[in-house]
């Protein structure tokens, strides 16, 4: 397989093209050709031992650090990835790609169907976390990297990291799994379903064909984002941040304006999300998370894999106030790995910032990621 690479100047991204590759998806569908948009940071060393793949969460993209040209803001994990940061790009070669089904340059519902001038929209095949990881593995192969030093991700990124450990243990040395789980819980599916219903009941959505009129189901997508955003926070964090404070007024209006700061904040989150994210992509990616389930199979997959995985090291991190992916979910993974005598470290960080903690200022998270990477890299460097 020969991978073609180009640079997209508008997206400020590298694009990898995989042509006539007939990527077989978990659903049974195939995609003939696809592309992945990705960014790299730092330099690959001569032995190619310092490559780290960072996997983004549901609404993330390849702009993990530096400037994001779509939003005009800093990359989503720029506090973690960069020179002298915990994931130090002076030392490591960091790769981050937009997932298959995403909307920041990789093949997804927003992109044109092969050989036509119409976008996929609702015709895009269903993709799963496993499919995303398969596509990423082709990118790593295309970059001529035999082995990744580490795969790191939070939330949906953690799902991908875990999938890497299951599907390609021979191509990685360790994973850092933050705020994730073996499965997407019923409650999580329920929240995603409400979000999808909000999008699909927007009359502008029109079975996913809104792009034909150059329209966007803004109301539906922003409501979906508002709901999701609540699940990323915690009651304590909301209380600390907003309480019952009023927004730009001294007394309540006895109407339905955004009287409260928390309302105004959520409306802003919804509105700004619409400007950067594709509604169909949101449907597909939330579905991919819903389908993620290794609850019954993880232990067996690790124990009886035909692919040796004894060498893998795991760092699992959870947060006390994360009710979307609570600590118990992480502990299930840790227990199963320990029962198989695998090398696993686990920390539950005490914070009130909820699921989103992994994106925010958490010194202990920085410390354990930096230490875990540094010490394990020193071991292979010996």
């Amino acid at each position, binding site marked *: 397989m020969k991978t073609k690479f180009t640079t997209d100047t508008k997206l400020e991204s590298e694009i990898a093209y995989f042509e006539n590759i007939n990527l077989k998806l978990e659903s049974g569908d195939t995609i003939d050709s696809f592309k992945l948009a990705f960014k790299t940071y730092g330099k690959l060393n001569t032995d190619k031992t310092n490559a780290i793949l960072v996997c983004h969460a549901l609404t993330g993209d390849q702009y993990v650090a530096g400037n994001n040209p779509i939003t005009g803001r800093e990359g989503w994990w720029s506090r973690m990835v960069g020179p002298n940061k915990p994931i130090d790009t002076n030392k490591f070669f960091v790769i981050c790609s937009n997932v298959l089904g995403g909307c920041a340059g990789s093949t997804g519902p927003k992109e044109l169907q092969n050989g036509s001038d119409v976008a996929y929209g609702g015709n895009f095949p269903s993709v799963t976390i496993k499919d995303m990881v398969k596509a990423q593995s082709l990118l790593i192969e295309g970059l001529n990297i035999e082995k990744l030093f580490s795969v790191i991700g939070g939330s949906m990124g953690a799902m991908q990291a875990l999938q890497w450990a299951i599907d390609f243990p021979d191509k990685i040395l360790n994973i850092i799994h933050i705020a994730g789980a073996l499965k997407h819980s019923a409650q999580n599916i329920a929240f995603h379903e409400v979000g999808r219903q909000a999008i699909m009941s927007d009359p502008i959505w029109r079975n996913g064909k809104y792009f034909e009129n150059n329209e966007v189901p803004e109301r539906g997508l922003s409501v979906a984002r508002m709901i999701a955003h609540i699940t990323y926070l915690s009651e304590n964090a909301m209380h600390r941040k907003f309480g019952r404070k009023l927004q730009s007024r001294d007394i309540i209006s006895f109407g339905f304006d955004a009287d409260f700061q928390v309302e105004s904040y959520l409306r802003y989150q919804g509105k700004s999300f619409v400007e950067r994210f594709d509604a169909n992509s949101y449907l597909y990616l939330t579905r991919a998370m819903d389908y993620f389930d290794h609850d019954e199979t993880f232990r067996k997959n690790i124990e009886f894999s035909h692919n040796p995985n004894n060498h893998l090291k795991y760092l699992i991190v959870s947060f006390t106030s994360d009710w979307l992916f609570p600590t118990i979910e992480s502990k299930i993974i840790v227990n199963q790995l320990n029962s198989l005598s695998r090398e696993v470290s*686990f920390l539950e960080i005490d914070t009130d910032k909820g699921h989103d903690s992994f994106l925010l200022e958490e010194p202990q998270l920085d410390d354990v990621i930096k230490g875990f990477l540094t*010490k394990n890299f020193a071991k292979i460097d010996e």
Partner: protein
Amino acid sequence: MNKINSIRKDWSLIETLIAEDRKILDIGCGDGGLMEQLENNRNAITHGIELNRDLAANAIARGFNVVHGNAELDLSQYSNNSFDYVILSQTLQAMMKPKDILSELLRIGSKAIVSFPNFGHWKIRLQLLMSGKMPVTESLPYTWYDTPNIHFFTIKDFLNLCNEMNIVIEKSIGLTSKGKQFDISESVTGVNFFTHEAIFLLSYKNFEPIKIKSSKKVFAKNSVIAN
């Protein structure tokens, strides 16, 4: 002997009980000090479990395999005989169910190393006798109402429990309060009186694993103890 020195002394004695290239679980591993020592000096593969969040975070940041968790709840996740040694240093007296912990140590590990302060030491006996109040000493420096040490026991108590549980004491080291070291099993009289701290290397009596063969794996089970 202050607290830190006492721990270091404890560690160096534990090290003498451990062979090269073994797999070790350190329960209550703190920030990984003993794990580091055993990796460096014994080429050990180490795992740790630590209840205190900050200490666990430090240990992980220093690159050790450490699980943040509670030994009284989380030991069940480890498989039978998955370690060569399981170490419980200076913590047995702080456990809710010391007997259960002891049997867990020997389920998970082929051998267990347990160290504890001896409540039968003459200074402690004297304090209780003379003052009529619960003793407060250098190795047990807490008042009765805020001590983490909830199960006080003497060397004699420990030996009796081991006997009851069919546990073999392979080696035992005693330390006087002056730091003088001796072999507990060889000193017959006054051991329980003069031992300030004790370290035991334990295993099960006449241990014979039953091997159950399946097509995929061999399972070892230590359910039978032949007398």
